[in-house]
């Protein structure tokens, strides 16, 4: 019933995969030559070329704003190119819509989840090529096929559930599932791993390897160098909209690669040895939560946060990290439990209350909950500060300019134009603007949910350094990230979550990644020994 690559003999697939000859001739499936695209006065791409061979994983590398996503969109017909040629399967071809590209066997996962929240998971995966019966959609067959694909990816998601009800990471997995379900000869993945944890990434790589074996060409974008070295064969490096070089991954060291990407040596990459430096000096917590819970998203959790301390929150997808952060900020209201800020009992009924008490929260879902797409970079940066001042007290022009210029420089936001529209920034740069939005409010407690998602390696180091610096100045930071190394590197204290509750909390002296994974894995037993009720249930 389902047609997957898996079930067909490898040889036939290779022959059939869009008519690419099975022979060794490295005839490219796709060749883009001298592509240029200009937006207004921004030259997003300037004579970039890309060669994509069948059966390879091709990494597209570059800093935030280098033009990776733009190149992908140029290929798949989202943007029309100014000049250059695109050759698909030996013929010059330019797609007019993503639908046309898809019909030609190019399957794409765009950066940021581009699915529709109001349809089911199965529909999101299969819409446009759903199984039909007598002209109508065969819903049962569709759900079955979706379930099969999800299972192959090792995902336990109900295909009939609404996509919008899932956290962003799950949505990203569904987007990937959509792309690999189709019989494509080219699969393009624009930062698919930015919110996945190690497990999910490994599952994805398995699928990618399988596809590669079937002769599918894969374009892969990621800011995680380790992932590139693990999966990619060749890579094309972009910088500021220009082609730097095409290279074999095996022939390039990480250091070389980074230098090619950013065009200079990178000093900030050294390990941040924070963990040992911090000592808790105050006894009064900035924030103290006791028994905080919300039905369906967080079980009763206690948490204390102190000045000048970075608390890392580790856990797998759906372990409730985001929910915890939202409750601390008042984005959702808690059903039970108490919250004390600076020893005063508070009921946070809206984010506004939290902000007034100098708490800040940067959401993991930047598209839906962060970016104000049609406002300028400057307005986006100043929004939270302005909101807390009230509309009657506009930020004076001079202060405005200074703040914006400072943060554009401090976070290296590109383009460095305060009046650029937020929607036109690359994903990573948008994230930096949002970070700036909160830093400008000078919070005492800063909650960062996946602040480094989609950020290039240089910028990531910058942001980590910034967090460390802020903590050094006495700010309390909650740091949530799917990347365990990052959490460990930054935090003074580590909170481990699982199944929507805190299961452990450690001073971060000597905790390693495998320790954390062990804690998470060992939870089944630990929980079992904790209460009899749960033991009996197991």
């Amino acid at each position, binding site marked *: 019933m389902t047609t997957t690559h898996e079930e067909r003999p490898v040889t036939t697939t290779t022959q059939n995969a869009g008519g690419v000859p099975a022979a060794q001739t490295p005839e490219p499936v796709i060749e883009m030559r001298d592509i240029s695209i200009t937006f207004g006065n921004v030259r997003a791409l300037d004579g970039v070329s890309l060669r994509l061979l069948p059966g390879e994983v091709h990494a597209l590398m570059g800093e935030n704003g280098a033009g990776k996503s733009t190149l992908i969109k140029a290929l798949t017909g989202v943007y029309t190119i100014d000049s250059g040629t695109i050759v698909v399967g030996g013929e010059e071809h330019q797609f007019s819509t993503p639908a046309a590209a898809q019909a030609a066997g190019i399957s794409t996962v765009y950066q940021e989840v581009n*699915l529709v929240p*109001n349809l089911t998971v199965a529909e*999101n995966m299969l*819409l446009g090529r759903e199984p039909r019966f007598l002209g*109508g959609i065969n819903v049962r067959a569709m759900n079955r096929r979706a379930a099969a694909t999800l299972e192959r990816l090792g995902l*336990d998601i109900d295909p009939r559930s609404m996509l919008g009800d899932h956290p962003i990471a799950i949505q990203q997995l569904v987007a990937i599932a959509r792309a690999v379900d189709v019989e494509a000869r080219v699969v393009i993945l624009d930062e698919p791993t930015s919110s996945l944890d190690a497990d999910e990434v490994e599952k994805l790589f398995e699928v990618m390897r399988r596809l590669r074996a079937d002769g599918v060409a894969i374009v892969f974008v990621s800011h995680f160098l380790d992932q590139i070295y693990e999966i990619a064969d060749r890579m094309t490096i972009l910088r500021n909209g220009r082609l730097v070089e095409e290279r074999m991954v095996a022939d390039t060291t990480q250091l070389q690669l980074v230098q090619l990407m950013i065009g200079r040596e990178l000093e900030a990459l050294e390990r941040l040895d924070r963990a040992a430096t911090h000592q808790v000096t105050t006894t009064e917590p900035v924030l103290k939560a006791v028994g905080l819970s919300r039905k369906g998203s967080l*079980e009763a959790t206690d948490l204390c946060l102190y000045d000048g301390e970075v608390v890392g929150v580790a856990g797998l997808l759906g372990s409730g990290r985001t929910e915890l952060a939202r409750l601390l900020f008042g984005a959702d209201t808690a059903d039970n439990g108490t919250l004390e800020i600076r020893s005063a009992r508070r009921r946070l009924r809206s984010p506004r209350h939290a902000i007034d008490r100098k708490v800040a929260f940067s959401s993991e879902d930047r598209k839906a909950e962060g970016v104000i797409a049609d406002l300028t970079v400057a307005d986006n940066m100043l929004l939270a500060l302005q909101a807390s001042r009230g509309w009657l007290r506009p930020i004076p022009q001079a202060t405005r300019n200074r703040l914006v210029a400072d943060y554009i420089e401090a976070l290296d936001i590109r383009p460095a134009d305060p009046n650029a529209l937020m929607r036109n920034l690359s994903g990573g740069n948008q994230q930096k603007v949002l970070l700036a939005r909160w830093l400008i409010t000078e919070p005492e407690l800063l909650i960062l949910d996946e602040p480094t998602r989609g950020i290039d390696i240089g910028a990531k180091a910058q942001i980590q350094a910034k967090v460390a610096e802020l903590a050094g100045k006495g700010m309390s930071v909650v740091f949530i990230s799917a990347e365990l190394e990052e959490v460990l590197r930054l935090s003074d204290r580590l909170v481990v979550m699982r199944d929507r*509750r805190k299961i452990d909390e450690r001073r971060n002296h000597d905790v390693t990644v495998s320790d954390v994974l062990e804690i998470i894995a060992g939870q089944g037993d630990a929980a079992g020994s904790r209460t009899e009720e749960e033991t009996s*249930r197991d």
Partner: protein
Amino acid sequence: MSAATATLGTTSLWDKVRTYSPPPRFLPLIVTIALFAGMFGAGSVRYENFGDPQVFLSLMINNAHLIVLAVGMTFVILTGGIDLSVGSVVAMSTMILAKTLEKGWSLPVAIVTVLLIATLLGTVMGLLIHYFDIQPFIATLAGLFLARGVAYLISIESIPIANETFMKWAYEPITLWSTYWIRWSVVVALIAVAVAAYVLAFTRFGRTVYAIGGNESSAMLMGLRVGVVKVGVYAVSGFCAGLGGLLFALNTPSGNSLHAVGMELDAIAAAVIGGILLTGGRGYVVGALVGVLVLGVIQTFIIFDGTLTSWWTRIAIGVLLLVFVVIQRLMTRRQT
């Protein structure tokens, strides 16, 4: 508790039973239906003869055309658009029908002409909206002017319809049981609802309609045929307006340029009352049907009362609408 359920996303059967509630997406619809039933019940208690099934049937007879309009409007609203032209298209359709019949065209040809012209107008508006980025409000407002203008151009005087077959459809009651009857227009309207429900739920076109309403640029990036579908929904709405015009003519056998002034607002209100979100992507066509019935039952309330002056009539309609909308909102609150 949930620590016991080891894997993510799975819940025990007991949990499912214990926490069962209708899927939240059906809630607005269910609430609307319940409120409608409540209103009807209240009317039966309050007024003599209100509980007569024929009152309910008359509700359908009186509003068959509006049901069809609301069906078309549902398609448009689900994509996040709006169609202001439908009222005028109804007037234009009655006018074209009456004029062509007066000129001696055969009935089927006249009907097909009406439907074609209405669909064509809808398509043109859709093209303007999709390909030239003209906002739906404006494009369809222009459509409103155009259709009304065409109606006036055909004749500023009303034209009676005398075609025998047509009048037979208009007069002949379909007896359901004992003395209870409906008209053909009701049958057509219900078929329209059924077809629309099927199309929206089980065809690629229908699901793409929802996808566009959910997020148009995502739908485009998913490789869905956004252009075709967007133009398509306005064509559907145009067709429905044409069909609505024909049903309107069955109810009031005449062509008149003054027909159906402001009816687009009724259609929009009906759809929205039925739980269809104006921002697009959420709602069911059955909701539009119930929305029409709610508007109708409010009118019936007022007429049965029979003591209100013109202004109290309006105020009463407003208040009933308010009560309805507020209760509906409070009951579906936890949704958002």
